[in-house]
Each structure stands twice: as C-alpha cells, then as structure tokens.
C-alpha cells in the first residue's frame, strides 16, 4: 500500500515537472520577445508580451520586473509599483529588481511629494 502511494507520488511529480517547465518556457518566450521589442522602442507591444508572460506563469519574477519598467516608461506609476512589489515578493533578494524599484521610488516620491515633505 505504502509502495503504491509512493509510486503514485513519483508519477505525479514526473508528470507535473514537464508541465511546470512548459509553463516557464512559454512565459520565457513572451519575455524574450518583449525584451526585443522594448529595445526597439515598441513599449506597448512589450507590455502585451509581459502581461501574457505573467498570466502564463504568475511566479515569474523577471516578467513582473520587466512589466513594471514598461509601465514606468508609459507613466502608469501605480501599476508599475504593483508590478515591482510582486516581482520583489517572488524574488526578495534579486539585486536587479531591488535596484530598479529604488530608482522607481525616487521618481514616484518626487511626484507625490507635497508641501515640502
């Protein structure tokens, strides 16, 4: 009985792994395409691609980070903040995301600063 349960668990893991890998691989394709179009200045298309990537794989921190940058470039600062925070929640020790977020906060704080605060 125990052996059967172990076998079932092993089979489930083996079946699930390629699924997860496929999900990440599909999301990665969207992220890569987003990067290539962003480098050409096509930020709306990049946003579409990175939004797709986060839908396909919501745990993909890089996709959230890139999406935040694109939102920032489009002036959608509330959306940018949310995306940065999601990216940091997924990868709290990623120094690139932390650096991007710090730079973003500097600009965002300047725009929301009122009465000399």
């Amino acid at each position, binding site marked *: 009985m125990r052996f059967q349960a172990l076998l079932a668990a092993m089979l489930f893991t083996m079946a699930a792994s390629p699924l997860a890998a496929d999900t990440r691989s599909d999301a990665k394709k969207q992220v890569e395409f987003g990067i290539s179009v962003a*480098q050409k200045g096509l930020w709306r298309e990049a946003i579409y691609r990175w939004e797709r990537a986060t839908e396909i794989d919501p745990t993909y921190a890089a996709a959230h980070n890139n999406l935040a940058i694109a939102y920032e470039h489009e002036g959608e600062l509330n959306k940018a903040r949310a995306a940065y925070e999601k990216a940091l929640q997924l990868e709290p020790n990623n120094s690139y995301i932390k650096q*991007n977020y710090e730079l973003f906060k500097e600009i965002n704080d300047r*725009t929301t600063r009122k009465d000399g605060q």
Partner: protein
Amino acid sequence: MTARLARTVSSAALVLLTAACTNYYEIPIETPIRPKLDVSAFQRVLVAGFVSGGTDDVDANLETTRLLRSQLRTKSELRVIDTDVLPLMDVANESNSQGSGGSSATSTQAPIKDEKDLEPYERVFANVEYWKKVGEEYQQPLIVTGTVMFTPHQRNSIVQREEEVYDSFGRRRVVPVRTYMERKGYILRPKFIFIDGRSGTVMHSENFREEILYNANQTTPALSSYFELMDRLIPSFLSTLSSQKIKGTRILLQ
C-alpha cells in the same frame, strides 16, 4: 597540479554559470510625470513676485522671480509675462493698515528675519479682489507668487571626512575620521502659491525646504548657495505646472 587545475576550471565554470543564469539588459527609459496642477485653461503665466526675508545678502524676491521666469520660459508651454515685480509688501501693509485702522502699518515694515515675521504678509495671498484686479490687468494669467525665506544657518555637529594615513611601509591609505565641526550655511524655505488670474483665488500652494552647510572656514557667496538650493527644488516646481520626462536606465531580466 591536477587538483589546482580542477579548482581553477571549476571556479571558472561557476563564474560562467552565474553569468549565464542572470541574463539582463540595461535599457534607457523616460518616465513621463503628469503635472500636479491642471493649467490647460491658461495661456500665460505671471510670476508676480514674492514676500521675502532672512538675509540682506540676497534679494530673494528679485532672484526667485527672475529664476522662475527663465525656467518657465524654456520648460513650460505657458507664455511668460515680463513685467516689474509687484510691490507685495506694500500691498500687504496697506491692507493690514486698512484692516486695523492704520495702527499695525509700522509693525509690518520691520525687516523679515524669520517665519513669524512673515505672518502679517501672508494675508495678501488671500486677497481675492487684489489678485482678480491683477488678473484683469494681465489678461487673466496663472499667477505664481508666495514667500521666500533665505536664512543663514549654523550647526555644530560630528562630520565624517576622509584622511590620508601612511603605514610603517610608507603605503598610503584613506581612512574615515569623525570630527566635531562648526558648519555654516543657509536654509531656503520657499512657499509657491498658484493663483487663478480669472477668479483671484488660490489654486494650489507648495512648501519646500532645502539646506546647505559648509565648513566654517569656507567662504561661499550667499548668492551661490541660493542658486545651489534653488537648483534642487526647481524640478519639483516645474512638475507642478508642466509634464516632465525623467530619463533613467533600468534592468530588464530574462
């Protein structure tokens, strides 16, 4: 020898692996910042002048008016009205003396040394009739006015500075040293008030505070300090009236 080679190869592989795992691309971005104030109803802007005080070394009223006009000329879409600065202190004195039967006129003619001295003049900004009249005279522009305090400042505190030291082998090192120092400088406290030239009412106001301190033996002209401090807050002032684009770089990740 083989062990050392293996170690070198493995460490090189580790570096390559780390670089391969973190695919990143630096990309320039321009973040558009929307203006805090909707000024689409105005074609012209009048920087009317300021009630100023703090030090006699700098005429903060004239300098601020000149600086803001030149900044607005190049960095906003509004047409800047060139005219003499308005005698705001006289207007405030006049309205104060009218309000109290002439008795307080002398009290507001004293030099403005601190924030408290500014208080009697603050009422001029709420004088809707006066600003409406100014608005009519200049074809109902957006009016920028307010107060500017530029005051000398002194503070004794512990400062960290770097010092060169040489060890017994004559090697130079730079070490941080904490010393108690007397420091002098200035505090700039402007309050920008935006008035609707059509109605004479205040639309928006913003307070700023910037401070600069130098070593006590350093002699920096007051006007240089004034411009240095104004430079810091000009972007915030401009972002109230016109959209700005802030350039920067970010890291895209794969």
